């Protein structure tokens, strides 16, 4: 599939039209407002507001910054039910240029494998229209937390993948090179890759902009491109949705709430050191071992 990302095969684009950036976003329930049905223990999705997966917003902002710097356009792509159009429209209001929704009954119940298949097909289709320079995703989604879809898409499209990216230092279309900083265990890696590639963006690396009033009007007017599985160039429906998902959800359950036992400590005096001592005394009363372990550090009293 990677031929469609090859700029040399694009007769129309000798580098004048700028970057073609695609950001994959997902509409997710606002996890802060999800409730579990107290009787059936199932997740109550009704009435829960939806948001753009917060990690995806960092990816979107990163893409828009590249666009603003080098020119070009940012397309947001999502797979989801028809209502996911709302998330795409919101992304347009934030400043994205185009939006594509792939939606089909056959996508229902997709795990990360099936999702990456559908997204990769749509990206290939988009890339055939005009070669893509960088595909962006968030680090992971807040409803699945797997961080698998981005890498899955990269693998299917044969793209280099740069995950957990904290900053993009350089993007050179002439040489087809991108240099990023990647946060890894034990430090920061500086990585270089050929374009096109896939970048998953870390949280907190930027702040999503507030679109202008013109962005909002454009978003309100924009037609979100809606593709069915067939429109997205999906050849094998067996690889979509539940059918294409080897993951089985065995059981959904609400964690048993922990017995929280909080204790109020009343302290005479207002000095922070007095309060700290009182709290420490109480902690040690509950965990006598801790006192001997920490014995090396003298308390305020002892220092006096």
């Amino acid at each position, binding site marked *: 599939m990677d031929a469609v990302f090859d700029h040399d095969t694009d007769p129309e684009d000798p580098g004048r039209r700028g970057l073609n950036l695609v950001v994959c976003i997902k509409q997710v329930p606002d996890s802060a407002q999800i*409730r579990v049905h*107290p009787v059936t223990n199932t997740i109550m999705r009704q*009435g829960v507001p939806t948001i753009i997966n917060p990690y995806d917003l960092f990816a979107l902002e990163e893409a828009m910054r590249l666009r603003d710097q080098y020119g070009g356009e940012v397309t947001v792509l999502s797979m989801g039910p028809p209502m996911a159009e709302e998330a795409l429209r919101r992304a347009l209001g934030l400043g994205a240029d185009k939006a594509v929704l792939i939606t089909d009954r056959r996508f229902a119940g997709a795990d990360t494998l099936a999702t990456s298949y559908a997204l990769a097909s749509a990206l290939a289709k988009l890339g055939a229209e005009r070669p893509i320079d960088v595909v962006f995703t968030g680090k992971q989604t807040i409803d699945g937390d797997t961080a698998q879809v981005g890498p899955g898409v990269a693998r299917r499209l044969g793209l280099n993948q740069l995950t957990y990216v904290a900053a993009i230092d350089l993007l050179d279309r002439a040489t087809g090179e991108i240099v990023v900083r990647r946060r890894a265990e034990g430090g920061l890696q500086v990585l270089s890759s050929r374009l096109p590639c896939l970048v998953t963006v870390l949280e907190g690396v930027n702040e999503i902009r507030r679109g202008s*009033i013109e*962005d909002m*009007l454009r978003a*309100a007017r924009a037609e979100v491109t809606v593709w069915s599985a067939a429109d997205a160039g999906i050849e094998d429906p067996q690889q979509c949705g539940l059918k294409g998902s080897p993951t089985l959800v065995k059981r959904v359950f609400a964690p048993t709430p922990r017995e929280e036992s909080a204790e109020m400590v009343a302290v005479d005096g207002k000095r922070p050191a007095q309060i700290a001592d009182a709290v420490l005394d109480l902690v040690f009363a509950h965990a006598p071992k801790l006192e001997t372990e920490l014995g090396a550090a003298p308390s305020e009293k002892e220092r006096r």
Partner: protein
Amino acid sequence: MSEHFDAIVVGAGPAGNSAALVMAKAGLKVLQIERGETAGAKNVQGAILYADALERLIPEFRDEAPLERHVVEQRVWLLDERSHTGAHYRSDDFNEDRPNRYTILRATFDQWFAAKVREAGALQITDTTVTELVRDEGGRVIGVETDRDGAPLYADVVVLGEGVNGLVGQRAGVRPELDPQHVALAVKETIFLSEEAVQDRFNLDGEDEGVVIEVMGSVSAGMVGTGFLYTNRESISLGVGCLLSDFQETQIPAYVLLDRMKSHPSIAPLIRDGETKEYVAHLIPEGGYDAIPNLSGDGWAIVGDAGQFVNSAHREGSNLAMTTGRLAGETVAALKREGLACNEANLKRYRHALEQSFVMKDLKKYRRLPGVLHGNKHLLTAYPRAISQAMQTFLRVDDVDKRSKERRMMSQFRAARGGWWNVFTDALKMARAWR
């Protein structure tokens, strides 16, 4: 480049949605601006939907709108600390093809309503706050500024459906600042219960029937106010509201009032084991007829709560909002059709249309009520207690003869108000306020 619209509607509540819908349907180029992240995100109501006002806008709404239950039973309870005296009216006639009242959850309902407005052709942007009205040299309103970067947006008319405490109208000097005596502060919880529990506890047949309980008396702790309990499909909306000026005076925190109501022996069993999903607070304009500001001027009109359109005596508000929005929208659409300007003189038609409708007629009828209640708070404390006492005297069976009981009831009642003369003047005041 800045754009010109036929109309800009500020707010996507019932009033703004109604105005935008009517104008968009009439073919006008309409822009609606909502500050919440989605339409309805900032909107709070009990909430009862009165079908008639919506039916005039969207006749087929019953097939599409997210409705909870239609109301088959209305209860009015007078509470003292431990008892309630109630009147219930229930009728199978309310199980009709086109029910008259529904409970709704505004978050989902408003999104549906706003989608209908978009379908009608209005342009809608959310998460955007209108900050100022833009005027020309002659003082005529010609557009709005928002909190986003970019040029002002221009329109022939700006319809302000910005809600009770909207600041645009106040800042622009077209609405007075709120008077604490003219607004109630209401707090509400949505308490989750299973569908079966709701049906069992309120004697409801199936998932569509619903009950409304309006509560007066000790629930407002001596302040001018009322409480309510509405049954939704899988939850109960329970709240209490009192005049803001009374809250200021008594210093009772609103949540304390709500907690007290929830623990009242008549109410606690109805919500037992429920899980509170939502806690909201909202201001309700209750100044009545005399608090209504100027409703239109050169290039602007006011609809809904922003215009103090609430009938507090009958707990009606959203229907007034929809009706004022519709009439404002129809006025603008008619002016456009006739090629007339949306200036001060022509927009007076909107006020005229309101005067002909139930909106102004009802508000005029109850114009004395806010003042009477404000000056006679004992109406909400002394009587519920006296009635409760009388009921107990009447119902307890012991060795006291009935005639003595009746005498005791009468004297208890008289004592509650310090003499018959006071009872008489109370009755007279209420009758005048209600007339």
